């Protein structure tokens, strides 16, 4: 297996693990953690897309590095994606705190005031 293949597989595995915990966990905090794991997988996936064999970081230095540089675009995207993930997580945790105050629980099976 080549390096990118390993990375792709692990990225996909991370996404799947994250989604699985979203699907099966009832604890809201765990679900948010699952979301973060899946986010991580996506970020890894994005970074891997820019991979080049023997590539170096896309920074021009005084002494020119040997070999090609990796794609800078996915790295920039990942930066954005991380920040967005942070923002969403912060908001989600705030909401969980409020939910805990109002419902006295963070179990999805108990927080079912809105249905049907």
């Amino acid at each position: 297996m080549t390096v990118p293949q390993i990375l792709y597989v692990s990225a996909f595995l991370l996404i799947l693990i994250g989604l699985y915990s979203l699907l099966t966990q009832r604890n809201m905090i765990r679900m948010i953690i699952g979301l973060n794991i899946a986010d991580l997988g996506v970020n890894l996936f994005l970074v891997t897309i820019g991979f080049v064999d023997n590539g170096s970081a896309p920074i021009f230095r005084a002494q020119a590095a040997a070999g090609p540089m990796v794609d800078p675009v996915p790295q920039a995207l990942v930066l954005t994606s991380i920040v967005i993930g942070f923002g969403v997580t912060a908001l989600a945790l705030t909401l969980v705190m409020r939910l805990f105050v109002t419902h006295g629980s963070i179990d999805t099976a108990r927080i079912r005031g809105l249905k049907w």
Partner: protein
Amino acid sequence: MVSPILFIVVPLAAAFLTVLVNRNAGARILALLTGFALSALAWFWFRADLSTPVSVVIAGIAPPMGIQLSMDRLSAALALLISVSGFLVILYSQSYLKSEEAQSKHYAVLLLLMAASFGILLTRDLFNLFVFYEILCISSYILVASEETKASFEASLKYLLLGSVGSLFMLVAIGLAYRVSGSLAMSDIAQALGEADLSYVMLTAALFVLGMGIEAAIFPVNTWLPDAHSTAPSSISAVLSGFVIELALIVLLRISMTVFSSVNLMLPLRYMALAGILIGELAAFGQTELKRTLAYSSMGQVGLMLFALTLGTEAGRQAGMAHLVMHTGAKSILFLIAGYFIVRTGKRDIKSYSGLGRRMPLTGVFFVIGALSLVGVPPLFGFFTKFKILSAAAVSGATGAWLGIAVILLGTVLEASYLFRVVRTLYSDPETGNTRAVKGRMEMDVPALIAVFGFTLLVIFGSFLLPLIPSGLAL
């Protein structure tokens, strides 16, 4: 020079400033002014000659390296819709939010939501779309929760987690698309995906469509909608039902038809639309809360628009967009008035609104007009759009078109019956004890009344707009 970029920059700047002002009166006026300025701007672009789209490149770097925004006739029309209804909702909020503590923040988030809407509309870069989509989502989550009730937190968190999974899907799709095209500009991706392996494109398309479809509330992923729309502050329900889902729908359709044109996305979307109409209207039929009823009705209406837009013909798209404009007007009227009922009675059940139509004659008439238009009764706009949708379906020859017509007509029967159950309650004799619960002046405050009246005008005279509604879904 009036650049389309102002659509994004002006509300952003206003949002930043609003937080600094941090005084309710100042924030209100600032938001109102921004709404007005945006409407004026949108009017300028709507009147401008856009036979060739005006594009703007950011930082002077042309795509694929840079980001490009493009203003075409469709975007101009939708921008006008968004800014005018945003303005009216801000006007309504002047009286609706009076009791709220954090008004300035509320307006700031609302302005962010508008900025994000314009961003989604104008951008021609897939990742930029994602960023604006996230701003839109996050501000929606916040606004839903800003009612600060037990139910609204629950709804907001559900919305947030579903939305985040949706954006996760979108991001994976963007990654997959970047992998084959090496670019983020939509046109490049469209070209590259046209030559790519079909099953690869299918996965990408499915991930993208259902990721973005969460905000657009297409059938199986619209589970957040009844909760969020029914528990949000009513002004926000009007915004969410009025233009956010419609906007997401249009952008989604534009991308499905251009970027993912190599797979036949229209077919599954059409069936999802039909399922959405049926499920939404049926579920609305069994509701007892007014806002929840309206939320389920939005689901059905989204299905209707999606059905028209996915017919694959020019006429179908035009009908779908016309219906979208109509739905913005009608559903905003209904939600805004529902909010008013809740403020006045403190209750959410339909049956506790008995007799309100007599005590608030003008409001009652507006409600009836909104409901009639939603059902599609002739002199009103709703009839024109429904007729257009049905006749477009009849001539399109698309798979499932006649089934769709049957489902739509059935949905209309259901819709009429539950909406007019509400009207009947409004005009029945008030329950004993209900009178005591009604507080404040009987008719709305003036700004709110003007806002509702604005939407009512749209619903009544909207049919004159029909030739102005564009139908092109090009990039």
